């Protein structure tokens, strides 16, 4: 019998529980030819704000054991070019695959404005869209992080974005808070449909010979294999604090990693840094989840959610 892989992420119908992590998958089409897109339930694209943004100076990344420290700094074209160029390209190449659009801004008003533009564009375009609000990027001073570190500010931001769009609204939280519960509650109170976590963990690498930080931005965010156990704990904590569906990410390199997230209470899983070294990871994780369901007698991926034995 075929395993039912469909999930519903806060109103976004996904054919499989898998998506990509924002910032690691461009505007969706870059990996055509290398990634098996039929295994994805959605693609999550790079963060977009109102106006074009140049990002940080080079070097923007450094490889570390078990992952990557990056300080890309949210370079992007701005909402106009995103809607006029990248969305039509995505629909031409990927047809109906749902698109999760990661957004950010320098003010609460900007977040709401971007969301409103997406709302209007989605009504006119074919295919499903969702919004993922990034309030947890460690690499830009003005945007991102500041809004995700104070539950009251977060509630206000989510509330304004909620008013601006009817699209499924996912809020992406930071891992570096002592207790995730007040932030989850702020998302609920603000009217979010789902939460996603984790973003990268603030990190730094120093070139001891040069006695300088390696990254031009000095600090960055750690992703990849090394963050996975941190992410599993964060997802588990969040799942116990809310009934909102969770999109989990952080160091998924094989099916086992995604299964940990599902058992901890996630509804869907994003794959990020692993795609850089192995675009085949998307198919491997997809097939591994189905195989697991068969071996453990689950008819549907949805039954895995929170199915950890006590």
């Amino acid at each position, binding site marked *: 019998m075929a395993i039912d892989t469909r999930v519903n992420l806060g109103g976004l119908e996904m054919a499989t529980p898998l998506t990509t992590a924002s*910032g690691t998958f*461009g505007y969706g089409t*870059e990996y055509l030819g*290398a990634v098996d897109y039929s295994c994805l339930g959605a693609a999550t694209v790079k963060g977009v704000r109102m106006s074009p943004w*140049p990002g940080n100076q080079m070097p*923007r990344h450094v490889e570390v054991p078990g992952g*990557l420290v990056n300080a890309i700094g949210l*370079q992007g074209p701005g909402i106009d070019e995103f809607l006029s160029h990248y969305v039509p390209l995505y629909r031409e190449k990927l047809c109906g695959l749902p698109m999760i659009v990661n957004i950010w801004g320098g003010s609460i008003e900007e977040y709401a404005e971007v969301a409103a533009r997406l709302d209007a564009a989605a009504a006119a375009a074919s295919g499903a869209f969702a919004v993922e609000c990034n309030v947890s990027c460690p690499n830009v001073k003005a945007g991102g992080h500041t809004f995700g570190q104070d539950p009251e500010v977060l509630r206000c931001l989510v509330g304004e974005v909620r008013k601006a769009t009817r699209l499924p609204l996912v809020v992406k939280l930071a891992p570096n808070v002592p207790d995730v519960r007040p932030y989850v509650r702020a998302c609920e109170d603000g009217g979010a449909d789902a939460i996603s976590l984790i973003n990268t963990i603030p990190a730094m690498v120093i070139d001891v010979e040069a006695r300088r930080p390696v990254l031009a931005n000095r600090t960055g965010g750690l992703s990849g294999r090394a963050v996975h156990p941190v992410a599993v704990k964060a997802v588990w904590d969040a799942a116990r604090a809310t009934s909102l569906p969770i999109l989990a990410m952080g160091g998924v*390199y094989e099916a086992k990693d995604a299964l940990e997230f599902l058992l901890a209470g996630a509804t869907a899983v994003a794959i990020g840094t692993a795609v*850089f070294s192995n675009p085949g990871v998307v198919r491997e994780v997809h097939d591994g989840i189905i195989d697991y369901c068969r071996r453990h007698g689950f008819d549907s991926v949805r039954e895995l959610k929170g199915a950890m034995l006590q």
Partner: protein
Amino acid sequence: MIDETTTVASHCEMGAGYRLLVLNAPGMAAETRPGQFVHVKVPTLEASALRRPFSVFDASGQDGTVTVLYKTVGRGTAALNTVKPGDAVQVEGPLGRGFPTECNGTALLVGGGYGVAPLHFLARRLRTKTTLFVGARTASDLLALDRFAALGVETKVATNDGSAGEKGFVTAPLDREIARLRGAGEAFELFTCGPDGLLKAVSERAVSLGVPGWISVDRHMVCGVGACFACIQRTVGGNARCCIDGPVFPAKELIWQ
């Protein structure tokens, strides 16, 4: 672009810390153009290690092979040293925008270090008269000159210590040839790959003379396909991604710090 399971056809030392790695890559060989690169998963590194980008030194649709010429500089290239004929190597390619292979007049190729790698493949595909200018620290750093000779390419060499060719920078013989061609009223274009200092020098000449200049820029990469914005070069159009908007840029689009 595909992600192909290639096998090693041969792997040999070239001297000066360089190796030539020939891969059976029938899926991408015929599609690969000069100036494009491949993203190599080094099989003996941990599975999560990033891929390493290498320009294509040669590719043949008939043989189904893709060849890279690489220098051992760090842990990835050191680990790559150990692969043997028959080993499987996962490779994404062909990637990026390469050189044009149509050239108006003489093609002046300017290379330094592993920068000669894409110029070799370019020389094979160009149909016009081609001259190669190579700069190196010392004679033993000069690479694959016999391969260029076999393609009928005239080569002019400059070394910092004068141990081969003329002593000094490669821009000296280049400037003399440019002056000669201009004096004779002959058309030419510039093609280059190598260290940033060389790229900048060649770019400035192309722009000030108003001739086409094709500059292959190397930046540290993560994805290699345009998905992550790690590999930035400043251009007149803003911050471009070297892996997808380049690595070859028209000289007039580049902005140097």
